[in-house]
């Protein structure tokens, strides 16, 4: 059987077991997969699911982008300059260990309950992780290969595209993977605390109403999107840049 079939099988059997459990025991606090699917449909038709998902996705996209734009150069700089490394390493470690919740609360307090604060909080949480990964990437650059580019007098553009970046791809991939996984989660917390839309905000409301079907409906819709982006975008990117390894 193909790998995809096995993957699908594991999801389907989990859902089947769940459905059976609910039918037989009828627990108060656990809706069945069918109930949840129905709820997803209702929320979808009303348009609120899509609106909230989009708001969250936008925050995820923005904060991921800013975190990468700042974190990647910073990490590479620390890889090449010993002084930069000594200056920033300690600070980076501190920021990595400040709980995400603290950063989120402080950002909302300092910047106000707005979009800027939400995105800034996530970016601050995310940067240290990217910095650490990219510093490793920068240190792993093989100067013997860079010497080839130099000796053959390759243009700067060619050197970057064909010699330098390919050595960083594994690290960029790792940073993207770990980064997105982290950003999804932190964005929801930020939304729960200080936003007036988004998946996190909606989950907060359902929490107050004890609406478990609603919570799970949003969770699954959201997880579905994460899985699709992971499989569709990141894995495809990975297989295209890592083709030579097979």
């Amino acid at each position: 059987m193909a790998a995809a079939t096995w993957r699908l099988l594991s999801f389907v059997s989990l859902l089947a077991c769940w459905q059976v459990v609910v039918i037989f025991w009828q627990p108060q606090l656990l809706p069945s997969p069918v109930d949840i699917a129905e709820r997803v449909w209702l929320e979808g038709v009303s348009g609120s699911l899509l609106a909230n998902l989009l708001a969250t996705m936008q925050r995820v996209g923005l904060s991921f982008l800013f975190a990468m734009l700042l974190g990647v150069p910073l990490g590479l700089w620390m890889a090449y300059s010993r002084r930069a490394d000594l200056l920033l390493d300690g600070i980076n470690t501190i920021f990595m260990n400040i709980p995400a919740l603290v950063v989120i609360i402080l950002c909302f307090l300092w910047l106000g309950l707005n979009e800027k604060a939400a995105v800034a909080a996530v970016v601050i949480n995310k940067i240290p992780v990217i910095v650490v990964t990219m510093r490793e990437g920068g240190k792993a650059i093989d100067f013997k290969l860079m010497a080839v580019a130099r000796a053959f007098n390759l243009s700067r553009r060619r050197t970057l595209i064909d010699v330098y970046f390919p050595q960083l791809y594994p690290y960029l991939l790792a940073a993207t993977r770990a980064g997105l996984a982290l950003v999804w989660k932190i964005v929801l917390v930020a939304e729960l605390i200080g936003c007036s839309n988004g998946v996190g905000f909606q989950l907060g409301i359902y929490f107050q109403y004890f609406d478990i079907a609603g919570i799970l409906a949003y969770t699954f819709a959201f997880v579905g999107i994460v899985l699709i982006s992971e499989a569709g975008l990141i894995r495809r990117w990975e297989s295209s840049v890592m083709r030579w390894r097979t």
Partner: protein
Amino acid sequence: MMTVNIANKSYYRDGAAAAVIQDLAFEVKTGEFLAIVGPSGAGKSTMLNLIAGVDTKFDGRISHSNSNTGSPKLGIMFQEPRLMPWLTLLENVCLVSDSPNSTLTAVRAEAMLNTVGIAASSAQYPSQLSGGMQRRVALARALMSEPDVLLLDEPLVSLDQPAAMELRQLLLTVWQKHKFTIVYVTHQLEEAITLADRILFLSATPTKIIREECIDLPRPRQLLDVDALRISLCDREGLLSGRLG
């Protein structure tokens, strides 16, 4: 004519400078096949890196006085193949060309790969090849850049004898056809005698030239002649026999 003048090349370790090369000066005529022989650890690779412009931190000057203006094109083959693992063989060879993406370049690169004896598909990645085959690709890459000066750093080390002989012959054929300048670093005197117009002998660090020898044997050179010359060279310079065997 290429003039190499390295007054001083030092490495710094723990604040102290250790000279690797000192007062090393020589000239290479355009189209000359120069071999440089020296014991291992004599700074030969360091010297080649300076000539190649990979390392620019040294006192001295590498100058080229060519008939045609502009800096000469360099081709280089390192001790290791140093192919880009993420590029196919064809892409690796095309990389050093002026227009790596043109069809013409691809056709030339295919031909070059055939010339160096890569029969396998050029769409393979370097990791799928043996070390010897990777060296062939590295040679193809070096030749692909159409160099005015070709620098070779023990390029055939660790190849089996027949393959090394084949590639030596190939190198000579290409060189005789295009008459570029070659600087060939090796620690094997025999190899140097087989190939070169002139041999420079280097000392251990700090590297200096301790002897110069023109090889007047007509090409193609016979194994017996090469061996006789090697023995007489070693006899004349007792020092060398110990170091270079």
